[in-house]
């Protein structure tokens, strides 16, 4: 069974640009979660999608947004990139009440 896949592995963007990160959940998982792991800030919850709907979002500005497609894959978009957006972005999927399976992450560097 394929795990959670994320692309790209690394992404370098210039301040002010937009970044798009992609995630494919484990087959059969309907929920997708996004987390940010920035240096010194730990793992912070970003977004939760389930059945195509945004169910919850963390304490991030509106320029962090995303969507979930009918096949349950998901995109995270970060607009107007700032230097402090540099971080490892992790996607996870789960079934209700179970442990989360994380992808290997996308390392976003904003220069």
């Amino acid at each position, binding site marked *: 069974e394929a795990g959670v896949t994320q692309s790209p592995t690394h992404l370098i963007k210039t301040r002010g640009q937009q970044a798009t990160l992609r995630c494919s959940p484990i087959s059969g998982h309907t929920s997708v979660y996004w987390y940010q792991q920035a240096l010194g800030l*730990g*793992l912070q*919850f970003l977004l939760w999608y389930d059945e195509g709907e945004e169910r919850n979002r963390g304490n991030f500005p509106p320029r962090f947004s995303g969507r979930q497609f009918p096949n349950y894959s998901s995109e995270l978009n970060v607009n107007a990139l700032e230097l402090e957006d540099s971080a490892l972005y*992790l996607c996870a999927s789960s079934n209700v009440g179970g*442990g989360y*399976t*994380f992808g290997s992450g996308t390392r976003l560097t904003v220069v």
Partner: protein
Amino acid sequence: SQQGEEDPQALSIQEGENATMNCSYKTSINNLQWYRQNSGRGLVHLILIRSNEREKHSGRLRVTLDTSKKSSSLLITASRAADTASYFCATDGDGSSNTGKLIFGQGTTLQVKP
């Protein structure tokens, strides 16, 4: 803000020794999970313990949960060099509703010396 606080922040042991990491949290929970992260890459789910469970085992891992003290511990027995990683506890943060949000501790960095 991080709900979980882990102790110690860093731990260095010899191969074959046991490693114990502790986690404290603040609110009621449905479950508590432990994850491992190697070299800043993805998290690997180790074990989930529900709020009505007190102890759980998985291979060389033993997790305990004390909801009265809002704390959990992860014991790795007979450690190996390959266990070198950062370990995080995570709670669902709210025992009454499903928010889909995990609240992670700051993690314990474990180094196992061969």
